[in-house]
């Protein structure tokens, strides 16, 4: 399969729950209370508990590695967190090819909340197998 600029990655939709945030907190070792303690989250001005930025990065990593398979190697992966996301709402991960130069490929990836707002944006660079 030949990659070309504009190719879309298959969408990955996640349905995060507070339970998942607790599991992720344990697996990563990030026990900051804004991810599982509603009262604490509200005390620092949040509407409630929010997803870990790195959990959203994990979702976007899955988007990329599912699509890439064994066709190449991920050489860099960058994400910026632009907005908060709350459990109980679907989170859609999407991406597209933005550059193809020989075996060097760049992707734009992003995560959208249920209103289509891009709360996480990022890029991935890949080295494809010859």
């Amino acid at each position, binding site marked *: 399969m030949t990659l070309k600029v504009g190719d879309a990655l298959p969408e990955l939709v996640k349905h995060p729950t507070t339970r998942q945030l607790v599991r992720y907190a344990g697996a990563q070792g990030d026990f900051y209370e804004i991810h599982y303690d509603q009262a604490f989250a509200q005390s620092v*001005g949040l509407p409630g508990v929010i997803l870990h930025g790195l959990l959203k990065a994990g979702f976007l990593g899955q988007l990329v590695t599912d699509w890439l398979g064994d066709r190449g190697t991920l050489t860099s992966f960058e994400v910026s967190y632009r907005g908060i996301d709350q459990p109980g709402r679907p989170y859609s991960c999407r991406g597209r090819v933005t550059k193809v130069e020989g075996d060097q490929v760049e992707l734009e990836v992003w995560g959208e909340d249920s209103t289509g707002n891009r709360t996480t944006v990022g890029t991935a660079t890949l080295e494809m197998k010859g």
Partner: protein
Amino acid sequence: MTTSTAVIDRLRARIGKDGPPAEATVEAGHLKRFVEAIGDPNPRWAKEAPPTFLVALAPASVHLEEAEEYGKGWLNGGNRFEYFEPVKVGDRITATGRVADVYEKTGSSGSLLFIIFETDYINQEGRKVASLRGTAIRR
């Protein structure tokens, strides 16, 4: 503003100084718990670390206690990973982190303190397998 300036000055004094190295072995059980928490069923992760796993092996950004005098909460601004070699089950990884930059920005919703962290991940053979740059924000 005197207080926040003092906090920023103390944090800036740490720029470029390596923190204590953290060592950990990549364990299959930890990988399994990590990918189950993300909900990524790819069988590849039975033996190999997925893209963001290194943050679970050693802290991605040191939540510096002294920074907590500024604002009321932490936010993660972003993460950038660079990969040089795959990380496999059984690898012994040493993570060394440092503060790369500290600065304040004032916007419409008030002031924010940005702390940029860098972490290098070295394997048991002394080769750098990955690096991470993270932006932690106090608001």
